[in-house]
């Protein structure tokens, strides 16, 4: 089934100020194959893709298309060579129709005017190739994200595509949507398109890949046929020698947490009938010191909305919140912060990090906001705090003055976590703290979270990965259709039970 070599790199090297993003990378992509690029955050996957698509130019080495050396100065040049890319977020215009999106920038014309008939039939044909039939005159935003993604694929492959690059296309899709996407990919593969796939999900890697290239620290660790590479081997190759905390220490931590929780002075947070029209049905939730409460549910089930109500990011129109029995008003994030609540939002880039500011400034931001502008911490103290957390959380960066936007996702998340630890919080709300983060960093972050919990912090954890929620939570509240449908604890904490509840069944 594997066709000829389409795209190849030889000794590709690229550095950014202070970082070797890629060193000497050889990479091969064959027609009719799905080739998955695996690696931790900061391993160089994104840089490789950016070089292949003309976003960045390489410093040394060679890119070959069909054996001919090429150099892309701009994304348009790569596109002209038949290399199409789909990024994590759908890069289309939600307000335009499906057909317009597919033909934007290359509308067929008839006598100077746009030929709408040709656009609509062309769009239908392009979608039909992917076994999709949609009303192409509807605006794109009337369709779910997964369908939008298919439209993006249809756009990408509708004109002589040779290579399709998909950068974490599945991160906002649910399981059935992923299955549908994979169907489309298989079809494309059969038509001879070479597919380069980037994901963090191991199961998905094995479900779709023919070939896997593992990257580590900007180098190619190796290239393997998917069927020859067992999953544990893959993880080991990605992670290298970074120790991953064992299951035993985790349970030990949990036990410790239970022991210390009782004596700790952190308050109990009680939500009673907290709700907001159009967002969440009134919900009851209790958070105690030294306990992790997981919120499980699909995207759009009301998980994030609940967190935002608790944090005061949105105003609840019903219900009360009490802290140690005393009613409090959490009308704004500021109130919540004053009560010692910290919130790591789901969308790290848009709501978490302050991109152009340094690591130091990002870490002290919440603390400084609480102090007020007239009481500066002072450079020396800021430096001490930032360096302390950089070490304590293992944030990998050149120094504390590096802009946070240059860090990998996992390190950015640690900085956001450090920001809240710096205010000495009583409770933390973590919304998808490990999304888009590689396996090792995921374990690392969750281990920190459990350590914090062991020290008496109350934690509300939201995650799409049920396994992760199950592993660390003391209790799990399951959400479905904007309401809490069950709360499980102790022996009820079972994967199948959670899945059943999410899917709409009984516990």
């Amino acid at each position: 089934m594997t066709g000829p070599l389409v795209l190849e790199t030889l000794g590709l090297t690229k550095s950014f100020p202070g970082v070797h993003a890629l060193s000497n990378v050889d990479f091969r992509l064959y027609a009719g194959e799905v080739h998955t690029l695996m690696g931790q955050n900061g391993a160089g996957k994104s840089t490789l893709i950016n070089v292949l698509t003309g976003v960045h130019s390489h410093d040394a080495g060679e890119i070959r298309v069909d054996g001919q050396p090429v150099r892309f100065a701009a994304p348009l040049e790569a596109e002209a060579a038949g290399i199409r890319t789909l990024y994590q977020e759908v890069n289309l215009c939600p307000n335009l129709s499906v057909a317009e999106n597919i033909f934007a920038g290359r509308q067929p014309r008839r006598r100077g005017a746009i030929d709408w008939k040709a656009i609509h039939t062309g769009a239908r044909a392009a979608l039909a190739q992917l076994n999709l039939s949609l009303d192409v005159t509807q605006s794109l935003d009337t369709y779910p994200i997964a369908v939008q993604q298919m439209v993006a694929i249809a756009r990408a492959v509708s004109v002589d595509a040779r290579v399709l690059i998909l950068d974490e296309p599945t991160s906002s899709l649910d399981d059935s949507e992923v299955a549908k996407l994979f169907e489309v990919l298989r079809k494309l593969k059969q038509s001879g398109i070479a597919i380069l796939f980037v994901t963090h999900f191991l199961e998905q890697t094995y479900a779709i890949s023919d070939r896997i290239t593992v990257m580590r620290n900007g180098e190619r660790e190796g290239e393997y046929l998917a069927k020859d590479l067992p999953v544990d081997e893959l993880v080991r190759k990605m992670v290298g020698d970074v120790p991953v905390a064992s299951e035993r220490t985790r349970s030990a931590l949990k036990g410790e947490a239970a022991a210390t929780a009782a004596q700790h002075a952190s308050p109990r947070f009680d939500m009673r009938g907290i709700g907001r029209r159009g967002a969440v049905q009134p919900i009851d939730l209790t958070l105690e010191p030294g306990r992790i409460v997981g919120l499980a549910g699909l995207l759009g089930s009301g998980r994030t909305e609940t967190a935002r109500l608790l944090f005061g990011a949105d105003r609840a129109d019903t219900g009360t919140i009490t802290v140690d029995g005393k009613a409090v008003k959490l009308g704004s994030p500021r109130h919540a912060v004053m009560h010692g609540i910290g919130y790591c939002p789901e969308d790290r880039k848009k709501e978490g990090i302050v991109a152009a500011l340094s690591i130091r400034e990002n870490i002290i931001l919440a603390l400084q906001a609480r102090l007020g502008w007239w009481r500066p911490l002072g450079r020396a103290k800021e430096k001490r705090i930032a360096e302390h957390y950089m070490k304590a959380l293992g944030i990998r960066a050149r120094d504390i003055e590096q802009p946070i936007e240059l860090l990998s996702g996992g390190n950015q998340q640690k900085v956001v976590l450090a920001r809240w630890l710096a205010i000495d919080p009583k409770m933390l709300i973590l919304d998808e703290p490990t999304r888009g983060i590689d396996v090792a960093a995921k374990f690392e972050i969750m281990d920190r979270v459990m350590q914090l919990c062991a020290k008496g912090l109350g934690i509300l954890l939201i995650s799409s990965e049920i396994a992760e929620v199950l592993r660390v939570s003391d209790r799990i509240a399951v959400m479905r259709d904007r309401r809490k449908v069950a709360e499980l604890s102790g022996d009820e904490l079972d994967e199948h039970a959670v899945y059943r509840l999410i899917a709409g069944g009984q516990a």
Partner: protein
Amino acid sequence: MISRSFQAIARHPLLWPIVTLLLLFALDVAHRHDFLAITVLDGHFFGAPIDILNRAAPLVVVSLGMTLVIATRGIDISVGTVVAIAGATAAIVLADDPSRVGFALAAALGVGLLAGAWNGLLAAFVGMQPIIATLILMVAGRGVAQLLTGGQIIPIGARGYLRLGDGYVAMVPCAVWIALAAVIITSLLVNRTALGLLVRAIGVNPVAARLVGLRSSAIVFGVYVFCGLTAAIAGILTSSNVRSADGNNAGLLLELDAILAVTLGGTSLLGGRFSLMGTVLGALIIQTLTYTTYSIGVPPEATLVVKAIVVLVVSVIQSERARNLLAQFATRFAASSPATRARTEVQ
């Protein structure tokens, strides 16, 4: 090493404002060799640089306020109007009783604070687009100024008040001292408190700033109030310098010069990073440019065109892309310099 320092210089944010200013000076010196000469006349310094500083003073002060507003992703196009209102207010008080200079100053500054509070209320709490929010005062405020002055130019005769605009302290114009004090106080306010950090955080990512518990609205409000205050100070300086308050023309288009000064100084209109020093340089560039076009004899009807061309060139050179190109060029230049070549050969 060499290329490193070349790069550092080529990328330094204040490089182009400084280069532009020096080029303008060079042009002036070429035209009039004693341009930089400062003499003592009537017991105080006298010369072109002093004159430029003196005339730039109101713009420098306003631009400080504008810098902070722009850093929060805002803009204040009403400052010119506030200059007129503040001058008119002072003139009215002084017309009543020329001895109440202190009260006149307080009234003018108070009006500035009030104007800033109005803008801040609309922009920070009502949530209007800053350009629209301040457009209201820009247009309506001009009417208020005209109403205050009755459409006339009100002469100011109070000695104490006039000293601010054309008096001297320690041989240097009062206006220059006031502008200098404003620069120092503002940079202390920004750098010695956490205000600078918080303003930048709001400018870079307002959503994240709110979610860390920052009182963004209060800070943004405060920044507009401060901007109103700086405009009032400029209004006092201007009216004192021309010895009158003119509701129609005082501070006309000053908002555009202030925005220009901020941009020339390297602060992005998208908010976030800002540079007070850059802004001061930007204001001085604008004033020097005006001086230069007059002194080298550009016909008055062409001065605005010349100004436009210089501004265009400086803005293009300052763009991220041009800066990167220049840095690359500097690297290549350094790489081909004799010292590096010698080193490569040794290897």
